[in-house]
Every structure is written in C-alpha cells, then in structure tokens.
C-alpha cells in the first residue's frame, strides 16, 4: 500500500519534536478526523534555519509532515510557502489515493507556521490561493472549507 520511501520516512522521522524558541508554529487538523500536525519554524533573515514537527495520525500523515520539514529547511519563507502537496507526494514516491489529504495537511501546516511567524512580526498573513489538488472544486481534503 505504501512506497518504501513512505515507510522509511515514517519509521525514521528526522526532525521530530518541539522547538521551544520557535519563531512560528502552525497547527492543522483535529482529533475528530484523526490527524493533527504541528510544525515549528526557526527563522533567521527570512530563511528557515530549523523546522520540526509533531504529528498525531497515520503513517502517511507522519511521513508527509516529516518530509515537509525536511524539504523546507534552508528555504526562504516564500519558497517554503510555495511547497505544494504534490512536491511532498513526489518526494515520498507517491501516496495512496485515500492518503493524499495527508500531504495537503502537511503543506497547510507549513503555511500556518509561516503565517504565525508573519503575524507575530506584525505582518499581514499570506493568502492561500485555490487548492492545487482540486482548484477549489472540493477534493474532500479541506474539511474546514466545507
């Protein structure tokens, strides 16, 4: 069901845990739907110098959030903002159809952390465009949008 990369990322997540002095924290999901992701960012001069995650969820959720933290390290905030769920899926060598929403959650957690950083700095949060997986048509991955 899962690719070898998903299993490897899930069984050996690298950047697990809380960043006590994080500059931005993003949390998405809910216990009801069975996935909660929290991403912590340490930012220096608009660049992500450290990223950590905590996830309650299935193997795909853990692997997606782990991969996302791996991918956004050393990126600028706007580069990290542009990380798409498809990038996460590709890096994992693919996800089963029913698990693609986990990669969307990971992207959303990254964006929530970036906007938390911006809000803390008194900056306007960035607006998320239409979802690239459904173009706003409703892919079932964004319960908060109905």
């Amino acid at each position, binding site marked *: 069901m899962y690719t070898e990369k998903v299993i490897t990322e899930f*069984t050996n*997540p690298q950047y697990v845990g809380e960043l006590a002095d994080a500059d931005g924290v993003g949390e998405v999901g809910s*216990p*009801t*739907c069975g996935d909660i992701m929290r991403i912590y960012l340490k930012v220096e001069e608009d660049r992500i110098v450290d990223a950590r995650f905590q996830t309650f*969820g299935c193997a795909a959720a853990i692997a997606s959030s782990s991969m996302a933290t791996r991918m956004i390290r050393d990126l600028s905030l706007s580069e990290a903002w542009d990380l798409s769920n498809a990038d996460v899926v590709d890096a994992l060598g693919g996800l089963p159809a029913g698990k693609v929403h986990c990669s969307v959650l990971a992207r959303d957690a990254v964006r929530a952390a970036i906007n938390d950083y911006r809000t803390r700095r008194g900056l306007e949060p960035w607006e998320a465009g239409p979802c690239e997986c459904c173009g706003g048509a409703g892919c079932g991955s964004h319960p908060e949008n109905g």
Partner: protein
Amino acid sequence: MNDLDPRPVYMDHAATTFMKPEVIAAMAPYFSEHFGNPSSLYRFAAESRQGVETARRQVAAAIGANPGEINFCAGGSEADNWAIKGVALANRERGNHIVTSAIEHHAVLHTCEWLERQGFSVTYLPVDEFGRVDPADVEEAITDRTTLVSVMAANNEIGTIQPVAEIGRVAHDHGVLFHTDAVQAVGAVPIDVERMEIDLLSLSGHKFYGPKGAGALYIREGTRIESLIHGGGQERGRRAGTENVPGIVGFGRAIELATADIEGHNRCIAAMRDRLVRGILASIPDTRVNGHPKERLANNANFSFRYVEGESILLLLDAHGICASTGSACSSGSSEPSHVLLAIGLPHEEAHGSLRLTLGDANTEDDVDYVLEVLPEVIGRLRKISPLTPSCARIPEVD
C-alpha cells in the same frame, strides 16, 4: 525491515485463521479423486455428495440443529445478507421493520441500510459502554410491524458476547424471528439454537481454522425466507450454485474440531490473553481496554492508546513482524473511526488509537512476551511524535 526481528507473530485471528492440517487433509481428496458434481446421478458423484452431507451433519451437531436446517453458502457475508434480505422479503406482508444493533458487522449494517432504501424501516439499538445490547431495549423496539431481530452473538472488534438467549426469548415472545451473526462466536461460545431460541444463524469457516469461501446459514425448519442466489436446485432449492465441495468438507471438519472442547480451549487462550492485557496495562500508561471485562471472547484484547493513531501502531508492529488490527479510520480510508468504538462511547481520538490483538491456536507464551517487549517501544515512539502527548504519558526510552 531487514534490521528488525522479522519473526511473524500472528495476533489477528479475528480477521482470519490458518487452516489446521486435519482440515486440509480432509479436503484434499475432494480436489482430486472425488471431484464429481454432487448433483450428478452417476455413482462417481456419490463421494462428493456424501462429503457434503457429512459436513452438514457436523455443522448441525456443533450448534444443536438438524442437518436439514444447515444451508451451505460462500461465507459469513452471504449468510448475513441471505438471512436479513430473505426474511425481510418473505415476510413483507406481515411487516417491514427490522431491529438490529449499532455494533453489527457491516455485512448486517449495510444490508439493513440497503433495505431501508427499498422502503423497509430499521431500528439500530444502542449498546452500553461494554458493547452489550439490553434485551429490554429489544423488547421496546419491537412493533407489530417487526419481522426480524438481528443481533450478533459476539462482536468482531471488541469481543463482547451478547445475551443471545435472552434476546431470542424476547423476539419469540413477540412472534418475531431472531437471526444472530455467530461468525466470531463459533468455537468460543457454546451455541445451541434450541436453547438460545435462534431461527437463523450465520457461520464462516475461515474464522475457526477452516477454509475461506465456505460458510453456512442455519435456517430453522418452517422459517419463511426467500432465496438470495437463484439458479439450480442445490441446497434443496434454497441456494443455487454447484457446491464448493472441498470447502464444505473442510468447513465441517473445522467446526467439529473447534467445538470439541470449547471450555478447555478458552481456558488456555484466555490465560495467554489475560497475561498480555496485564502486561500492556502495566507498561503503557493512558491505556484503556475496550469491551466487556468478563463477557468477551477468550482470544480478544482491544485497547485504546491515547495520543496515538491506530494505523501507525499497526505499521510499526508490522515492521517488527507482528500482525494486528485497528478500528482506526486511517486503515480503511474513511474519515470516521470504527462504528463499534464510537457506539461504546469512545471519543474520536481514542477510537482512532485502537489496537485489536486476537490470539489463536498457534500463539505461544513466547509470542506474548515478544508483543510485550515490542508494543511499549512502538507506543513510546509514536507518543514522542504526537503533539497530544503530555509529558507524564511519555514512555522512558531504553537504549
């Protein structure tokens, strides 16, 4: 996972069981020398016919029925579909109402939902925190339009055994037919269709060391029921299709073995299961045992580990060679966790964090030790990753 212990420890016997060598041996001749079609008239087919009729007697003896009341079919799901649709359709002049429970197998629930779409009405009874149906609730739900009560003998997820005899009595007091899905119960709970006042009972061979694709529906003599599969005149005209002769023969032998010494078998399995439960509760904080403390299948242990999700538990156990099961939605691709765990009142996050371990005849005390060694480490790793884990629930790491 090459770096980990690859030993397979199978603790998912409620999903399916291996086949016992005696069962395979009983079936073997029916694949080769006795391959005749039981419906054929020539003498060569008599062996096949006798194989089927021997199995029918074996199944009947195991549940206190007459051989003529045993109808072979393809398994538990077909038996459930047949019982419910067959009774609903055959008795629709008398009524259109069915009473069942919220924790039935999907073979029952989805069948009832389908009947609702055809204009029938269904009452889904709640269960208590242990998963038990109250016979008084059954009585209250029955109306003069009710034709069938269907309550499982034992639950597949949490192992809770229902008060089947009491429910049967209530149904009969009101002149209503009683069906029970006994797929998980046979071999673990002594079944007597007379004493328990059961009119229809579903059975599946692969849950008690028999073959997959072989099941049966017990139908009490005189019960009004429509057929599900139409065609030839097999099973006395009730279920068309050439008989799965090797499967039926294996099914008969397996049920004979499974019901030979239920009490002794349960004692042995429950001792291992209880040690497993005690060990897990002692080593993993914030753990809940789901199901009934006493009225439960001897081989079933079902836990909720707070702060973690079931599918990730399964996959880490799998990496250590342990086969188990979960009621988490993430293992099935749906968004709702197990309807059984929600029905016993678990909050969503605990329902998502469930693990079912079901022991069987090949498990040893070593297997129990191995699970007790691996599981705390697995839960500890996942709790370390989870944002929900308070520091007091972290399991110290052993290096």
